[in-house]
């Protein structure tokens, strides 16, 4: 019992909402428009009111299973269907399925005469009939103020509109009422007086020839909502609103490391490469290889099977692909496998907010793990530098929140490169600086890591070579005249090589000499041994002869003693002992 009561309390406390299905709008409204109440959407001509309303209805049908009635006062049903078809909305299909009903209300002042009292019960009946016939939960009235042009009696209209909005509430349909923006008022005829639950203003502003669409929630009774102006985009998928400035610093930090595609650079970064989700700034003067380095990172991402989104603001897709082929990167194959996508536009094509919105949209469409923005410096062309700075800040925040490794290139103009980037440097995690090294009539590329948060990175300058098989990083020589690069480094390397060679040769000579000596010694030893063996053989021969002779004497003596019949054992002992003595002498 008490549990049910608390549940009810909670339900009462939070206003029920109807999601619009419009990307971003549901976020800033905290869930959608007030359910069962009318919402006023106003804005100047061409600000996207009708589109927003249409999307609200269509998404209601397709995503939330709520049928809708579109009461249009300006366009015929056919025109409306045709206008939104280019934005991927098939109204006619939904109408055919009885999920959506479009009623065109046309009040033609030229064929109407007014006399006496009247009310707008006809409109109520039409709307009520439409709602009931398809069981609609959502209603759009676009733009009801047109009635003021068709009917003269403004007093009747006002009281009837007031009644209409109350009636809509009683019907418990979630409604969008659009209104044209008026002078000093949100709408020309003060509709905001009647629709007091939720008011959304759309705006289409042009500053410095760049147009930006913005959306703002003026009020939302009984609900928290974002109060900023949010840029929104109208593209082939309709409206998407971007709640950009609501991002807090709550990103998770990943421990995962990703390779840059250049083993030597990974080593400089302490081994495995960059942190996933970190922001990388590649700064350098013109022609130092910023794009090539960025393309390597893109290539490495694709090799890992990750998607990479490449925003190019200076080069077209085909130009980039061609140029990168010359350093051995085959980007075309990644494009074919849909791992890589380019988005090449001029920075001045639209305002910063729209750029930012585009970033958001493309990122949420393509879901890349690595994003490259090449270069970010051009954004100052599309707004003031302060605006560009805040936009980049938000952009970096956005990428971080999405755990996207973001690589920005930045063109520096001489001087101290650190000063040029002072504005955004503080929010960059890894800062690679590419530099020109001019020495002995040569211009070579160098690179060092200016900073890299959270890793033990190298503090060394490396020479940066663009070869036909990619980027190579070489050690530079720190000689008495400073850093040696290019041909001077080669010369130094050659010098070193020859020194090594001569040392090697010397060692080999010594070795040979020793070998010779050993051979001489060994031959001497062999000769002496040969002599000794000859002597030994001779001696052996002598001993044998001697023994044979002794045996003969012994036999003769035995023969003699047999004939004389003497004692046998005494003779035998004497001969045995003599033989033993001989053996010992030989040893």
């Amino acid at each position, binding site marked *: 019992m008490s549990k049910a009561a608390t549940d009810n309390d909670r339900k009462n406390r939070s206003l029920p909402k109807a999601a619009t299905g419009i990307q971003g709008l549901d976020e800033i409204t905290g869930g959608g428009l007030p359910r069962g109440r009318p919402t006023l959407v106003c804005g100047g001509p061409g600000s996207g009111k009708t589109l927003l309303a249409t999307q609200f209805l269509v998404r209601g049908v397709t995503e939330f299973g709520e049928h809708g009635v579109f009461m249009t006062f300006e366009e015929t049903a056919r025109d409306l269907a045709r206008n939104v078809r280019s934005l991927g909305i098939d109204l006619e299909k939904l109408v055919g399925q009885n999920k959506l009903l479009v009623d065109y209300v046309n009040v033609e002042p030229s064929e*109407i005469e007014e*006399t006496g009292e009247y009310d707008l019960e006809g409109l109520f009946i039409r709307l009520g009939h439409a709602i009931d016939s398809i069981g609609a939960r959502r209603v759009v009235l676009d733009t009801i103020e047109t009635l003021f042009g068709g009917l003269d009696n403004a007093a009747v209209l006002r009281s009837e509109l007031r009644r209409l909005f109350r009636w809509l509430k009683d019907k418990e349909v979630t409604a969008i009422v659009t209104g044209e923006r008026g002078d000093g008022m949100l709408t020309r005829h003060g509709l905001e007086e009647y629709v007091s639950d939720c008011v959304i203003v759309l705006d289409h502003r042009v500053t410095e020839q760049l147009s930006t669409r913005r959306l703002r929630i003026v009020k939302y009774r009984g609900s928290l909502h974002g109060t900023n102006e949010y840029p929104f985009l109208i593209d082939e998928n309709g409206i998407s609103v971007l709640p950009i400035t609501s991002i807090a610093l709550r990103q998770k930090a990943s421990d995962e490391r990703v390779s840059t595609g250049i083993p030597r650079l990974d080593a400089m970064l302490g081994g495995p490469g960059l942190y996933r989700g970190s922001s990388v700034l590649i700064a350098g003067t013109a022609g130092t290889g910023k794009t090539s380095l960025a393309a390597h990172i893109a290539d490495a991402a694709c090799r890992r099977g990750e998607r990479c989104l490449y925003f190019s603001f200076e080069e077209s897709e085909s130009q980039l692909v061609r140029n990168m082929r010359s350093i051995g990167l085959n980007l075309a194959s990644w494009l074919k496998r849909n791992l890589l996508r380019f988005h090449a536009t001029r920075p001045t094509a639209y305002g910063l907010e729209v750029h930012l919105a585009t970033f958001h949209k493309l990122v949420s469409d393509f879901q890349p793990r690595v994003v490259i923005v090449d270069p970010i410096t051009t954004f100052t062309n599309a707004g003031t530098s302060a605006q560009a700075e805040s936009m980049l800040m938000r952009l970096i925040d956005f990428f971080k929140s999405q755990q996207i490794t973001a690589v920005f290139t930045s063109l520096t103009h001489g001087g101290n490169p650190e000063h040029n980037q002072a504005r955004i440097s503080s929010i960059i995690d890894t800062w690679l600086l590419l530099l020109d090294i001019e020495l002995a009539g040569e211009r070579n590329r160098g690179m060092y890591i200016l900073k890299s948060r959270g890793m033990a990175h190298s503090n060394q300058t490396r020479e940066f070579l663009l070869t036909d098989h990619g980027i190579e990083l070489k050690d530079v020589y720190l000689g008495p005249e400073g850093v040696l690069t290019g041909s001077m480094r080669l010369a130094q390397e050659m010098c070193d090589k020859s020194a090594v060679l001569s040392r090697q040769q010397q060692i080999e000579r010594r070795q040979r000499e020793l070998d010779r000596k050993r051979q001489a010694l060994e031959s001497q030893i062999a000769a002496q041994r040969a002599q000794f063996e000859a002597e030994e053989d001779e001696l052996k021969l002598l001993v044998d002869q001697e023994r044979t002779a002794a045996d003969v004497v012994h036999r003769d003596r035995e023969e003699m003693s047999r004939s004389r019949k003497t004692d046998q054992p005494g003779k035998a002992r004497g001969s045995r002992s003599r033989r033993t003595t001989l053996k010992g002498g030989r040893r």
Partner: protein
Amino acid sequence: MKRERSEPQTLKSLSTAAAASDVWQLRLYVAGKTAKSVAAFENLKRLCEKHLPGKYRIEVVDLLVHPQLAKGDQIVAIPTLVRKLPPPIRKVIGDLSNVERTLVGLQLRPAKGESDKTIDRREPGRARL
């Protein structure tokens, strides 16, 4: 509750407007029996008797009964009188309490500034100017 009323012809009208043999078809849209609806119907009947004797048909459409009919004639206000015939379609909204304006609206009488007797049905736009 669709009521149809066809009044028998009692008097020959002097008006040249109704010289043609065609009958005026008038449709009055109402929403229930409200005071305004009743007044409109009474006013319309009186007016027709006077200016279109015997040459008119009044059809009353109650939108509470036939809401789907509102769309066809683009009905927004109630009551609305629609002149279906002769063409072009003309509408008079309100309780028709102002006879003069009703006649102008039905183009039985030219708009202000023109002669009472001249009625131009064929070019209503110009007549109004």
